[in-house]
């Protein structure tokens, strides 16, 4: 069991030594990812595997022992992120042939931490892996270019803050429940609820704060847009799809079971106040994420906010606290991993070829990069949750669960967010791929094979999960069953919810869609033949716009795409901005620090401060 963690560590060390020649390092990276995937596959089903390392370091009187256990939910998260990481690894071989910095060793360390987080048996190991992942991702994001620094600094400060709040929570938990094992601490925490409710809520809130920072939920939704815009694209594909789930995994394994069976009064007999707290935060991050995504001009920032929205959906699933909602959000975790990885791979391909990531400077790439366009289109359809592809299944289950629990406001915000999602996703499709092709990208070619094959694999994955959800739902339900949830094992193609005959068969949906295409194609062939003519000689009635001194892509309407819509929301966003609030905290510290340096620079008040110190001691004696 432990060799699955040792392999990435050793490869990280080796590739750090041979960091100079890229080809070997990235090849090693691919092989170790492949090995991890194979190992994870072989671990399926063996849920009692554990590995304990006893240290005689004493904390709260007891000797600390660090452990790894193959818990089913951890396996579920680890396996599907390993699948996607392998695909990204293939992609990044081609992508990194001529990139400056080499992020492979640090990335291997992150994968080590990733597996550690999913397999940690007790809180201390979990925290150790969590913090390791925190600072290694800082180095991966900056990776040598200094303009990435302030975004990465912002992320680092937030993740360290999250880490500290989690440390306090873990230690309080350890002190009051006398154990660090995750599962037993969950049960004892519930009993602790009626003893010391104040401590219970502080522990829970601190945990939730740490997980929300990592998963970019509402109060901390700003860092993805700052970080994804500056990091190396292939690593950002990994980060935006897999690393944003680190907050969700502990929510699923610890917070939801604890909140689930708390004997708290039910509000509108739907759930206790904590469920609503999580639900409303999820709804807020979905709505705010969607609105902000609409107004972005940089494509990576746009998809950063779309990740925030998707995390919101997952939280809404958790808030419903019904088994269908729980399954729906875990299913959405895998869906989001797959579709976000696909989208960011195609973005990486676009940036690899054009080097530009501002949407209004791009356009018309569909004719030059058809495979990238298709992946992006599939990604868009999946992200918007449109049936034939994988996004729909999980959103459907979450909406069903919320409706069944009559959490009306949450359902409405979810639907608002998913239709809004359709708006900004389509906006990205239009500005990057459709419309006029600017002059400077005339000679842009399709990405080489090593990069287009992973994209095709991703397309296939999305379609496969879309049509046959059992590929993900079956292992998920088996894992939940192993964990002790009363759940019936999902069939290959049907998804069911607890409403009266609310089961949908995605296979039939696919057939219906295919038949629709056949009928439409027949209608199309029935018509007369048509000839293709270049784009810019239509509305300009044959004249070439260049004679008017304007080049073609000036006619590309994509700069402020939803201008009227934006004006509706501008007054709202001017007044309250969480982003300004957090960065102002940072600014205050940086504002105070020169005054302190001034105090130490001249140093002539030394004796005065000495006597003030003595005074403090004396006053302490009288006052305290």
């Amino acid at each position, binding site marked *: 069991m432990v060799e699955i963690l040792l392999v990435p560590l050793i490869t990280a060390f080796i590739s750090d030594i041979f960091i100079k020649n890229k080809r070997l390092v990235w090849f090693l990276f691919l092989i170790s990812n492949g090995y991890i995937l194979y190992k994870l596959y072989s671990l399926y089903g063996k849920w009692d595997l554990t590995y304990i390392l006893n240290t005689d370091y004493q904390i709260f009187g007891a000797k600390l022992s660090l452990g790894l256990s193959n818990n089913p939910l951890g396996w579920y998260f680890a396996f599907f992120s390993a699948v996607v990481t392998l695909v990204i690894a293939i992609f990044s071989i081609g992508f990194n042939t001529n990139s400056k910095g080499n992020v492979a060793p640090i990335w291997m360390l992150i994968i080590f931490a990733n597996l550690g987080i999913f397999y940690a048996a007790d809180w201390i190991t979990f925290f150790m892996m969590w913090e390791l992942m925190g600072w290694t991702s800082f180095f991966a994001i900056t990776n040598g270019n200094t303009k990435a620094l302030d975004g990465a600094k912002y992320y680092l400060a937030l993740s360290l803050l999250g880490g500290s709040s989690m440390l306090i929570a873990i230690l309080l938990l350890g002190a009051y429940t006398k154990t660090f094992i995750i599962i037993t601490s969950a049960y004892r925490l519930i009993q602790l609820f009626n003893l010391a409710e104040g401590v219970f809520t502080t522990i829970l809130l601190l945990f939730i704060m740490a997980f929300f920072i990592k998963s970019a939920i509402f109060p901390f939704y700003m860092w993805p847009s700052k970080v994804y815009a500056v990091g190396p694209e292939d690593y950002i594909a990994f980060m935006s799809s897999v690393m944003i789930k680190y907050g969700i995994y502990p929510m699923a394994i610890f917070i939801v079971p604890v909140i689930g069976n708390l004997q708290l009064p039910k509000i509108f007999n739907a759930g206790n106040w904590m469920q609503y707290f999580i639900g409303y935060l999820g709804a807020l991050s979905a709505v705010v994420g969607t609105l902000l995504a609409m107004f972005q001009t940089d494509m990576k920032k746009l998809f950063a906010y779309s990740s925030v929205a998707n995390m919101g959906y997952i939280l809404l699933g958790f808030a419903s606290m019904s088994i269908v909602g729980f399954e729906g959000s875990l299913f959405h975790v895998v869906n989001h991993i797959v579709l976000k990885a696909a989208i960011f791979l195609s973005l990486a391909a676009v940036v690899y070829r054009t080097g530009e990531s501002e949407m209004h400077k791009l356009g018309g790439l569909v004719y030059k990069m058809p495979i990238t366009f298709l992946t992006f289109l599939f990604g868009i359809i999946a992200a918007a949750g449109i049936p034939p592809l994988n996004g729909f299944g999980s959103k459907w289950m979450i909406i069903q669960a919320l409706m069944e629990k009559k959490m009306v406001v949450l359902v409405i915000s979810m639907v608002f967010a998913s239709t809004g999602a359709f708006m900004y996703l389509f906006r990205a499709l239009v500005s990057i791929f459709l419309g006029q092709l600017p002059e400077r990208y005339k000679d842009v070619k399709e990405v080489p094979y090593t990069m287009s094959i992973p994209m095709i694999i991703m397309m296939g994955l999305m379609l496969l999960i879309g049509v046959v959800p059992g590929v993900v739902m079956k292992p998920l339900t088996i894992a939940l069953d192993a964990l002790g949830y009363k759940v019936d094992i999902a069939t290959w193609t049907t998804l069911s919810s607890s409403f009266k005959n609310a089961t949908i068969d995605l296979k039939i949906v696919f057939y219906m869609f295919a038949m629709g295409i056949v009928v439409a194609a027949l209608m199309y062939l029935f018509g007369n033949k048509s000839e293709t003519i270049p784009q810019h000689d239509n509305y300009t009635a044959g004249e070439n716009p260049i004679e008017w001194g304007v080049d073609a892509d000036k006619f590309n309407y994509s700069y402020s795409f939803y201008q009227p819509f934006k004006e509706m929301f501008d007054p709202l966003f001017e007044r309250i901005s969480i982003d300004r609030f957090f960065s102002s905290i940072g600014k205050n510290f940086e504002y105070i620090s020169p005054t302190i340096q001034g105090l130490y620079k001249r140093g002539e008040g030394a004796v*005065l401060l000495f*006597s*003030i110190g*003595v*005074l403090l001691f*004396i*006053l302490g*004696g009288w006052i305290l």
Partner: protein
Amino acid sequence: MKDETSVLVNIIAFLILFVIGIYIYSVAIDTGAGIKITDNITPTMRVADKYLNKNVLDDNSTYQWGGTAEDTAANIVTSVVVDYRLFDTTLEVIVLFITILGFGFVIPKDKRKIIKPTTILNRWAPILMLLMLMIGGYTFINGHLSPGGGFPAGAIISTAILTGVLTGRRTISQKSLKIIEAITGISIFSIGIISYFLTGSFFQNFILNDKIGDLFSGGLIPIFYGLIAFKVAAELSNIYFEFYEE
């Protein structure tokens, strides 16, 4: 010109001292149980009682004038300084060595011309130097009998050298002063090491059974005081030579 920050600093300083004073006063008149800082501890409870009765090694030994004791110095302060707590004094010598070394190291080397001495000083200089040397010698020789000791003796001897410097006569060169200083320092500590080899523990007095009161009593004390005197004299006169212009 009194700008307002310094006035503010004055007030703050005054306040701080005022509060400290009140605090000390309140501690002094405190009525709690236990020994207070104001009442003197009964003499027998103090460590000094053993030094006075010179019975540190075995508790009930007494001594007579002219008889012998574990430490035969008449001046008990000297016995404490140079015998019972000799290590402090050796460290004291090092403090002086370090500070004068630092002094010489840090002071800028722009030596000033010595103005021509007046005839009176010229005439009386040798007599004065002789007198100072005699008094210095006296103080450290019977430091263990009468008040005084190595440190004041060194200071007096250095004033002799100072008069030599003031009158412009070359009494002793700075180089030789440094050598004296080093030799005396090393010899102090080598005596300590010798006593370690002789008696098993450092700085132990290995000259015993001499009688209290006579000139050569007190074991190693006169030797130590002599060395200290010369060391202090050498160091202090080192300072004068920093300003002396050949």
